[in-house]
């Protein structure tokens, strides 16, 4: 069962955040979901595979910089056409385009494997060499921020003069 943070107006006109269970969400309630708590999994897709060896191409960007969300979570988040989603885990955060996926159960989000997904995957391998690419707890919220392209994603990692030589 997914958990949502909700925002509602309290008497003094201030806003506060609450955690609410996913059930019971509906128009009759005067609150707006702002954050979804979900389990993030990453994995292969056809589009990701077809552009796997063309990582600088727009095809790879389109195929892997998106986040699939179940229909009910997507609607609960109220994502509008021009909005992306910010996915945050304890290991990092990344902005992705949002996509409805009727194959996903509520509370699970899917990001195609690649550098966008790995921005929020932890490095702990549990003693067996393999990070937890599936199953990281994440928070998802709508955002107007643009999705970084592959160059921007690595911009801060490019080395400066002389280092490593």
């Amino acid at each position, binding site marked *: 069962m997914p958990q949502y943070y909700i925002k509602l107006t309290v008497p003094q006109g201030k806003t506060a955040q609450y955690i609410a269970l996913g059930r019971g969400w509906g128009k009759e309630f005067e609150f707006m979901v702002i954050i979804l708590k979900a389990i993030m999994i990453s994995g292969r897709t056809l589009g990701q595979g077809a552009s796997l060896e063309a990582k600088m191409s727009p095809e790879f960007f389109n195929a892997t910089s998106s986040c699939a969300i179940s229909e009910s979570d997507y609607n609960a988040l109220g994502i509008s056409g021009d909005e992306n989603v910010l996915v945050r885990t304890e290991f990092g955060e990344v902005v992705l385009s949002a996509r409805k996926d009727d194959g996903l*159960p509520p509370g699970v989000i899917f990001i195609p494997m690649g550098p966008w997904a790995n921005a929020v995957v932890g490095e702990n391998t549990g003693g067996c060499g*393999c990070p937890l690419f599936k*199953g990281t707890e994440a928070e998802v919220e709508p955002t107007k921020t643009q999705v970084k392209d592959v160059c921007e994603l690595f911009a801060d990692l490019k080395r400066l003069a002389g280092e*490593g030589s």
Partner: protein
Amino acid sequence: MIEEDVLCPFCGCLCDDLKVEVEEGRIVGVKRACRLGMSKFMGHERIVAPMVRRDGVLVETSYEEAYERAAEILKAAKRPLLYGWCSTVCETAKKGILLAEEVGGVIDSTATVCHGPSIIGIEEKGLAGSTLGQVKNRADLIVFWGANPAEAHPRHTLRYSSNSTGMFTPEGRGGRKVIVVDVRKTRTAKNADKFVLIRPGTDYEVIAALRMIVKGKGDLLPDAVAGIAKSDLEEVADMMKAAKFGAVLIGLGLTHSRGRYKNVDGALSLVADLNGFTKFVVLAMRGHYNVAGFGQVCAWETGYPMAVDLSRGAPYFNPGETAACDLLARREADAMMVVAADPASNFPRKTVEAMAEIPVIQVDPYPNPTTFIADVVIPTAVCGIEAEGTAYRMDGLSLRMKKVVDSVYPTDEEVVENILDRVRRLGDDN
């Protein structure tokens, strides 16, 4: 000219029936390949020339200088990591292991972030395996557990598993039952007779419950396990026991989620249990076309399939300590050579940050994010298209890959050999 029976250098299916149309030394068409294989044959942007980083930017250079620079980096490093090796042929892997030994480094393959946990699981339990030919010709029950071949191995179902037609399986899909266990309704799940939706990270529990039912201890189970009704699990267990020849095909859903190698150990144990009732086999759905091949070469050269530390005089293997992600996360590796892989994309961000702090050598036909943080970039020919060599299909069958067209680039093997040669000469000078 049409080249027949060409192998596809993309996924672990290693399809060997492609027809490639070549005109004036260029590939103009491919038949029978799936979308993934097709895109590989039709080509992508290439690294044009060797490059070295000068004053922070990559500048074109000669192969000679690139080899020299790579050799110096490896020679100067105390804990070099030589990583990748799965989208190239076995001949490259062999030279890579020699190079790792020469520089006293750690050699690891992309398997560690893929089916590495499966290999550890197999080491724990043993594997009731088979070839894909047996699955195709005999299996009347196929279980895809945490595997989505519809997207990762598109021709698998038609060539080898659920939808294939074989000697004792003339009815194809109609004569088989298909079970899919996954955390989401994948395209593969849509082809299933029985789909079991599980919560992420509960594979081990579900497998353990199935094992209890199979072994007649189902009455000890609660009404639901990890959110799945016991009756659903009983149905799955009955289908399994009723099969004449069952095949469990495991994917990254097991190795990448909570439990990792223990999930695989569980799946292998379930298959071992089922062999007390009927015939069952299990196979890992290996990703890259030759990830299995590196494991073979590394095992026969060093005794271990991946993550081998060659700095101690005798090979040492302890994934979690000697695997690439761990060495980077601990900031232990002080130089990295990447051959036919893209860890900058496929590793968690923190480990990529560690890569960016050390000298990196990249050997690859294609530019990718690893290029951004590489200090030496050496372009090569594409194995299986521009260079021949041996590769191992996901089930361990070795096949010879063809060269279909000529290339101006050296092969991966030649590049690694050249670097090895220079490392040895540097050694002589000291």
